[in-house]
């Protein structure tokens, strides 16, 4: 079970991924919970240099896919929203091993860091031996834990556009204060200039089979002055109420809907709408 491949460079990792008998492991904190009796060999990604750490470009904050949650928490580059969400992941031991790329690739709508990537319109750099492509994270999720990632592809890095890193609102509802899978999570971004809403984004985790975001609804308030937005507040909340069709699971769908709308309303209140 501990046998596997330990590449140090991306090209080695991608070459290995061409073999369908190889399965990528970036932390393994989700993978190891499932069936561990597998004939496939694990490709350990934690030493792949191109996939590690945080760096800045003029327009983006770039997070290597194999960067652990603990590294995000300790990085001066990581934005406060990402740190806040990541600090609520499981427990210190899991945060030491688990990675942002793994959190995304797992495809779960409950993934704490993926919620942040959704709300900031992050873009994934996906590569294989055949080449590479850029994909908005929203397009990565195909529903029902299916993701747009071919069997030979790896998520190499995640690019967070700096222009989207606005003042935020965040709340995770778990069954307890640690080691708790999200029952609902919410992240909102809000920026205004001289009383006019310039940017608004709202993402809901663990509410449907993919992280929920609706740019059309968001645009209802964008461009408006605060007093105008206030007048539309009830319509805005009602529109989300109609659009959100939660799934039930550890909690009921009614609870998920109530909490989602309560938090969305509070998000507006906090930012003066």
């Amino acid at each position, binding site marked *: 079970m501990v046998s596997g491949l330990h590449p140090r460079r991306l090209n080695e990792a991608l070459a290995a991924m061409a073999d369908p008998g190889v399965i990528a492991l970036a932390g393994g904190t989700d993978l190891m919970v499932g069936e561990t009796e597998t004939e496939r060999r694990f490709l350990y990604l934690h030493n792949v240099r191109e996939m590690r750490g945080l760096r800045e470009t003029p327009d983006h904050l770039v997070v290597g896919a194999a960067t652990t949650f603990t590294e995000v928490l300790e990085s001066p580059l990581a934005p406060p929203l990402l740190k806040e969400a990541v600090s609520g992941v499981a427990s210190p031991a899991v945060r030491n091993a688990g990675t942002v790329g793994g959190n995304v690739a797992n495809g779960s709508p409950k993934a704490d860091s993926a919620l942040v990537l959704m709300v900031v319109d992050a873009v994934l750099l996906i590569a294989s031996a055949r080449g590479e492509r850029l994909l908005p994270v929203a397009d990565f999720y195909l529903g029902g834990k299916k993701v747009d990632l071919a069997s030979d592809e790896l998520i190499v890095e995640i690019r967070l556009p700096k222009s989207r890193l606005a003042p935020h609102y965040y*709340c995770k509802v778990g*069954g*307890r*204060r*640690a*080691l708790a899978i999200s029952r609902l999570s919410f992240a909102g971004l809000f920026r205004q200039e001289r009383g006019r809403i310039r940017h608004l984004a709202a993402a809901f985790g663990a509410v449907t089979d993919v992280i929920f975001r609706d740019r059309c609804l968001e645009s209802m308030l964008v461009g408006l002055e605060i007093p105008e937005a206030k007048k539309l507040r009830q319509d805005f909340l009602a529109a989300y109420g109609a659009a959100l069709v939660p799934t039930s699971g*550890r909690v009921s769908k009614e609870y998920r809907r*109530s*909490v989602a709308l*309560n938090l969305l309303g509070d998000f507006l209140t906090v930012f003066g709408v």
Partner: protein
Amino acid sequence: MAPHPISEPVVKKDHDLKMSGRALYAADHYPEGLLFAAALRSPHARARILKVTPPELPPGHIYADHRDIPGPNEIPIVNCDTPVLAVDAVQYVGEPILVMAGPDERAVRKLLSRVRVDYEVLEPELDVKTAGTTYCDYNFGRGDVDKAMAEADKTYDEEFETFYQEQAYIEPQGLVVRWEEGKIIARGSMQCPYYVHEALVHAFALPEDKVRVVQDVTGGGFGGKEDFPSNLACLAALCAMKAGGRPVGLFLGRAEDMECSTKRHPSVSRYRAAVKNGRLTALDIDVVFNAGAYTTLTGVVLLRGVASCVGVYKVDNLRVRGRGVKTNTVPCGAYRGFGAPQTVFAVEMFMGHIAGDLGLDPLDFKIAHLAAQGDLTSTSGRYHHPVPLPAMIEDAVKNSGYREKRELCKRQDGRLRRGVGLSLWFHGAGFAGTGERDFIKARVRLVKSADGRVEALASNTDIGQGLKTTFAKIVAHELGIPLDRVTACSPDTDRCPNSGPTVASRSIMTVGELFRRAAVKLREGWADGVEQVFEDDYVQPDYIIPYDYDRCRGDAYATYSWAACVVELEVDLLTGVHRVLGVWGCFDAGTPVDRTILTGQMEGGLLQGIGYSSMEQMKYDRAGRIRNKTFSDYLIPTAMDVPLIKVTLHVEKFPEGPYGAKGAGELPLPGVPAAYLSALEQAMGGIPVRHAPFSAEETLAAVMEAGK
């Protein structure tokens, strides 16, 4: 009053072993030739078994069913209605039907999945209110309840409900059994070696000296390893009987353990009260416990439930009915508190609700009705010893700032709302009724070797509560010799006398006192350079009013331990999520035999009580199945959920306990839900709570409905 020197903390006897990770638990021993056993369990809550077709048995594998049991197909747990293996019907999801063993656990499970069982599935009985079979029915009381109700200024009528609680010991159940020259040798994780011994003697029709049971290091019990290891031991022994001397291990995985082992009984309690001139004049109480499919411990669990159902209050007119009802669900059993948490929750919430209706603070109303020394207990026994609650209440109130906070929380707004709640309770210390004298007849033995070392032999197990340390402390203290010269052994029925089960918070109070008295004999008869043996046997104190089991009348317990607890919490009105801000507990378990150990017990029990109030949600579905059987679905508090816990110890010495010690282990849990959920009621702006646990989801629904 100066603290007793025995209370001075020491390093636990098993500290190094456990902290270094070297302690070996049941599944850590891999004896030569070990075979793994696993049971085929019923997927149906109620069905007739029409036909069982096993697959062809590969070489080296063992198959056993009820026809292989040499003695009666019964597990003696108070009664004998629990079969070792199902014969022609199954009564709950998880009931064992047959057992198989082999050298590879995975292969055995695969083999089990190939057994074909034809069932005729029947409609299960799942609702205690309509179920047809009552296993026990207690009726007792005093005074004239009907007259008090007729003459009341006001009467009250409420129903309270509680659900399962899973013991969630960190080590799942497991044993290793082998046959050696016609003798069964069983060792594993357990609380009560002589219960396992009795079960094996019974089901295998063996003389007592042909069964040996040894306790391994046990990773927690909390009641869950009281009776259930007897079931597993019989299954493993059946395979071992056919294994030609090879040892057979039966280790439950977490999901199997959570599905088919015992839990705290769900309950429904209807409480009615009469109040005249601001005073409680009568209580009319009807308690129903969901027993599950077999009687197991329900009779005694319910006895403690009804013995605790009046709480710490004095009431002249009382009528109590308590029933244990059969459903087609997993048999319930023992869990820290043993029936008391259900009724203490009900009576404490009820008293609070009456006080609120009368415009009084719950604490003032409770104080006005406190029982005192000499008053009648619910079963019309007596509180023979002082009731120290007034001083303990003062302590808990002062430490927590209860009154100021209660006042402050009356006026608040915003997203986060706070509340503070208080509860009072007792724990009847030791075995119920005259059980110690009539059934248990505990005996201990001290063996002094020629070099002056002393071994303390009893059947009580250290399951994390520190018994190896506290027994040794008592003996060393009485002998006036260093603690490292005294050892308390891990029970082995071949060597240790039967000092009774490790239950009912009796080990220190009852067995510890026997050790103290045996140590007095040894001290007085001490002779250097020779081996000496001294024993002591239980004698019932003279003051006891004999308990009449048929009429439920007399002293249910020899004495009582006491508790006062305050919980402060915060509720998020947008999500319903609770956050506990602080817990203050004042406990009287008599003289602490070790202050650190006792405080640790109190803190751990408080935390289990917090879980039972909130996040520990477990119910069965309409098919009688428990769905959440992993630790990611059944949540218990983590280190991050531990609030500020402040424990203070009050000492009301018990003259019959060692140095004044009395029952401790179960004391901290029973009243926590009432304190917690009273605090929640206040945080929710006065919405009444009538069931436990109470989830974040229910909290949000309640506050949204009330439009807070």
